[in-house]
């Protein structure tokens, strides 16, 4: 995309054109933070963290849906973070110098999708956007949005109990032998082209693996074979003895 854009700029007479080939992923990989826009904060299902002191927030108000975790408490606040580690998290502060450090702390907790709103409340208010007054929440309540092809953990567990869907385990036969859901059908991703025709077509199919990666591949393969009523469990699945755990 960017080399093409640079080519156009040269064509239009720009004399000093460069391309940053590593792009946004390369910037993050080098350890620098990236930013999100006010538009994104308003529209998307995110966790918004206000890092300022409670006293300051009481005076100025805060950005709607923000949760207060003061910078000085952040490194001890890991248990406040959502169970879903891919949750998008945006932070803001009145001290720009805190932002890089805060991003690093949150990334180290295991949340890679953390960005900053560097303009903070000041820029937000200057845009004429709503500023909330009153007590700010201090607990994060994040309810993850499922994409249309994903089955929620709750619906998946319901199907395990009442058999309302066919559970397809796309892990290898060896993994399946070590532990699996009762009633699950084992067809590894590799075997789907040959064995998919054996699957019942009168019920929805829920595909799972150990993490969600292969499950999505299994979903793709089934879709490409013409299966319509298929969903994926994007979650970590573990079997210990005859017990299982499903975590986000």
């Amino acid at each position, binding site marked *: *995309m*960017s*080399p*093409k*854009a*640079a*080519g*156009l*700029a*040269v064509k*239009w*007479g*720009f*004399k*000093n*054109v*460069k*391309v*940053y*080939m*590593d*792009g*946004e*992923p*390369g*910037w*993050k990989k*080098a350890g*620098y*933070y*990236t*930013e*999100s*826009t006010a*538009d*994104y904060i308003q529209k*998307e299902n995110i966790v918004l963290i206000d890092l300022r002191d409670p006293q300051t927030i009481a005076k100025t108000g805060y950005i709607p849906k923000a949760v207060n975790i003061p910078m000085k408490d952040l490194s001890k606040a890991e248990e406040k973070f959502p169970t879903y580690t891919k949750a*998008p998290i945006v932070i803001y502060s009145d001290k720009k110098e805190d932002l890089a450090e805060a991003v690093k702390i949150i990334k180290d907790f295991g949340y890679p999708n953390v*960005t900053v709103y*560097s303009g903070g409340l000041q820029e937000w208010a200057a845009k004429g956007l709503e500023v909330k007054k009153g007590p700010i929440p201090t607990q994060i309540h994040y309810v993850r949005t499922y994409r249309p092809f994903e089955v929620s953990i709750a619906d998946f567990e319901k199907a395990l109990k009442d058999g309302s869907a066919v559970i397809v385990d796309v892990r*290898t036969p060896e993994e399946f032998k070590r532990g699996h859901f009762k009633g699950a059908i084992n067809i*590894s*991703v*590799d075997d789907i*082209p*040959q064995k998919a025709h054996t699957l019942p077509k009168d019920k929805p199919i829920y595909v799972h693996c150990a993490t969600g*990666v*292969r499950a*999505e*591949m299994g979903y*793709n*393969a089934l*879709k*490409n074979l013409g299966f319509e009523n298929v969903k994926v469990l994007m979650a970590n699945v573990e079997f210990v003895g005859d017990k299982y755990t499903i975590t986000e």
Partner: protein
Amino acid sequence: MMELFRLRSMRALLLFLILTLLQSALWVTSTMAQEQSIKGQVSAVAVTIQTITVDHAGKKINIKYDDKTVFQHIDPKKIREIQGQEVEVKYVVVDGKNIAKLIKLAIAELPQGVTEIKTSELAKLVFESPGTYVLIDSRPAPRYHASYIPTAISIPVTVMEKEGEKTLANIAKDKLVIFYCGGPT
């Protein structure tokens, strides 16, 4: 005499049938083994089953790689890193499975008159000399809103193509203009 003739013609017919069958079988295997070539973005990598998913023409296609797969611009040991990148894949279909012969990372050539800027150099500009350059995010707008490099503005390449020169009209022609997107494509 008649009997013998019939036997002979039956034999000939049988031979003919067998040959035709063999031929069609050969034709089927040859079409199945015919190499396909696609370009697209890698949306998933599963090292455990040596499979990548390539988004191509609105479909997500699983393709397996093995010891015989040729990798270009990719370190097979770091295959996870091609996630999100644009690749060209040549593969054959064997027993319903797509087996990669070649996986090549698409590296776009820089147009004439354009040079590359590295992370350290860009970081220096971003943190020390704001205002001396214009940093443009060429990705689709939603990607920009979610996560952009500090000081960048959003002008998707599709908008530049559609609306032409006026998209950069308020930038001086001798200003340093830096473009980036989601990787080396």
